[in-house]
């Protein structure tokens, strides 16, 4: 990460950053193409691919029929054949229809073929709740996907990562799933015009603090930062760790922070039981048990299909207040 001077930087939205990354990839590498439902004429169900059809044409910005399993599988086949497909699955909710291809083929072919067949495929999926679109459109399954060996799972939580993770993912010889949180598309922050690829191996400390390690990723990061802000007002210094990559997990960064703070809270938008927060908690106890001054706390989504009513949805999801409360329990 090069440092940039003030006049260079300008405010950019998460959506624009993703689009800029897609444009760059399409310009840099002719093997790259985008395939998915409504990525072309419609402009992407969240507007991310808007304008790309006009610039790159229907061959490379390829509208697919409602056939998740076939076009995800076709992405795998095209990757095997040497292309660099970027497949968009509108939302993770619909990706269940393609899960056989993702787990049984994309994640497995390299090993099953004794190292012969790489699958350099990138799949983009929208994830997350918070917009009152109810049970079939609000899953946060990125942490669940992180169970699958052979996949790399990333969750850009900042404009900079939205801009930088794609190219690194495309250079990866193995399948990478990029989970974009629906609540972040309009998030805006300053970004250097020459912002580029970022690593997808390590977690990042978004805010240093000595009292407690507050772990989050994706849509939870802004809420964790907000909670940290509230806590700071009360003199509690939370160190906010953004996991960034959910598989493989960067234990080193997490454990180093835990060994400094001795207390941990994990904020995870997944349903609590079997969420990624459980794996992180388990690893921390395994590797830093004697460094802990308090049990690891988890703030997760209630174990309920996300309801439409805003007050119920709000109550179902982790919020800055509930995260802050967990931190207070941990430090108290």
């Amino acid at each position, binding site marked *: 990460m090069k440092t940039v001077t003030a006049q260079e930087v300008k405010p950019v939205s998460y959506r624009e950053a993703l689009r800029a990354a897609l444009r760059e990839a399409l310009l840099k590498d002719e093997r790259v193409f985008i395939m998915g439902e409504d990525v072309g004429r419609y402009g992407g169900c969240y507007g991310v691919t808007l304008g790309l059809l006009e610039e790159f044409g229907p061959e490379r910005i390829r509208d697919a*029929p409602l056939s998740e399993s076939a076009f995800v599988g076709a992405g795998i086949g095209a990757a095997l054949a040497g292309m660099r497909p970027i497949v968009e699955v509108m939302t993770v909710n619909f990706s269940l229809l393609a899960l056989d291809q993702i787990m049984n083929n994309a994640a497995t072919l390299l090993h099953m073929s004794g190292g012969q067949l790489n699958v350099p495929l990138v799949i983009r999926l929208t994830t997350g709740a918070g917009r009152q679109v109810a049970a079939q459109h609000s899953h946060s399954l990125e942490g669940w996907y992180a169970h699958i060996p052979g996949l790399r799972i990333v969750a850009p939580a900042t404009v900079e990562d939205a801009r930088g993770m794609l190219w690194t993912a495309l250079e990866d010889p193995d399948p990478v799933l990029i989970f974009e949180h629906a609540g972040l598309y309009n998030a805006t922050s300053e970004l250097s015009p020459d912002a580029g690829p970022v690593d997808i191996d390590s977690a990042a400390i978004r805010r240093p603090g000595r009292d407690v390690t507050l772990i989050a990723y994706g849509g939870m990061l802004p809420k964790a930062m907000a909670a940290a802000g509230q806590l700071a007002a009360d003199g509690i210094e939370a160190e906010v760790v953004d996991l960034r990559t959910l598989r493989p997990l960067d234990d080193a960064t997490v454990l180093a922070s835990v060994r400094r703070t001795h207390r941990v809270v994990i904020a995870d938008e997944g349903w609590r039981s079997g969420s990624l927060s459980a794996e992180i908690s388990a690893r921390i106890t395994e590797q830093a048990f004697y460094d802990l001054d308090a049990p690891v706390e988890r703030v997760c989504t*209630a174990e309920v299909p996300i309801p*439409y009513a805003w007050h119920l949805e709000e109550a179902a999801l982790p919020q800055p207040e509930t995260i802050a409360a967990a931190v207070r329990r941990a430090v108290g």
Partner: protein
Amino acid sequence: MTRRRTAGAVPDEGRHRLDLLREMLRIRRFEEQCVELYSAAKIRGFLHLYIGEEAVAVGVCQALTPDDPVVATYREHGHALARGVSMDSLMAEMFAKVTGCSRGRGGSMHIFDAGRRFYGGNAIVGGGLPLAVGMALADKMRGISRVTACFFGDGAVAEGEFHESANLAALWDLPVLFCCENNGYAMGTALERAHAETDLAARAGSYGMVSWAVDGMDVLAVEHAARRAAEAVRDGGGPHFLELRTYRFRAHSMYDPDRYRDKAEIEAWKARDPITALTAHLKQSGQLTDHDLEVLEKEIAAEIAQAIDAAEAADTEPVEDLTKFVYSPRPT
């Protein structure tokens, strides 16, 4: 709604056509109000309008008895109203109130009414098809003579679940009435960009189902076709498939700027508005006066106003009940 009790038998023609007009108008005016309420943020989340397609739901429902299960999509206000789901419970659902048919947990995309045998409210494209097959299977195994009507769009036909469901229904000779609402688009993807074979009735025929295309803008033609098909299904003739050629006058959802459709095309279809057409027909044939129409509009406006007032006044589900209905109370 009591007239629906006698559905199946053909009632007095003149009276009946006025009923058809009333049903279509109820849907049209209800949804026009929904647009207002959406702008006023009384209704949130995704909102998919049926405006322009009213003749399909209204026509098909004439051929059903109260015992016939109905499975629909996320664009289902029209089906719900035509089926006899009360406007109060529908409006309250969109208002996220506990008096809503789904207690405010479902919203616009998840209208359910077990009493009316209205099974949603399915927001995964194609996801309702296997459910309909299973309901028909249950009826067939119990020797109950019923028709399960399943509504889905042209886009859904591309999903593997359509293929699997059509094959199962035809293979097992199940009493399913497949009602394909071909409005020419799946979000921004035109029929010819999603299907190698755009004659959907012909495609369905390849499973050995009786299938034909119907003018979905002519409620009388839809009713006629639906009665013929439903009767055959009820008499053990196996699954039938109707391709109902229609058009949505509005965008896919409230989020859709509708960049992908040509204005002339939209206007051409609007010229075939099923409500305008039936109104003109009834007036010409002297069965409807301007005064009758005014009265009708007034009655409908009153029904809607009352539904809104009731929804406004209703309570919301207490937050403590968030995790209710995830599991049933265990039988003791």
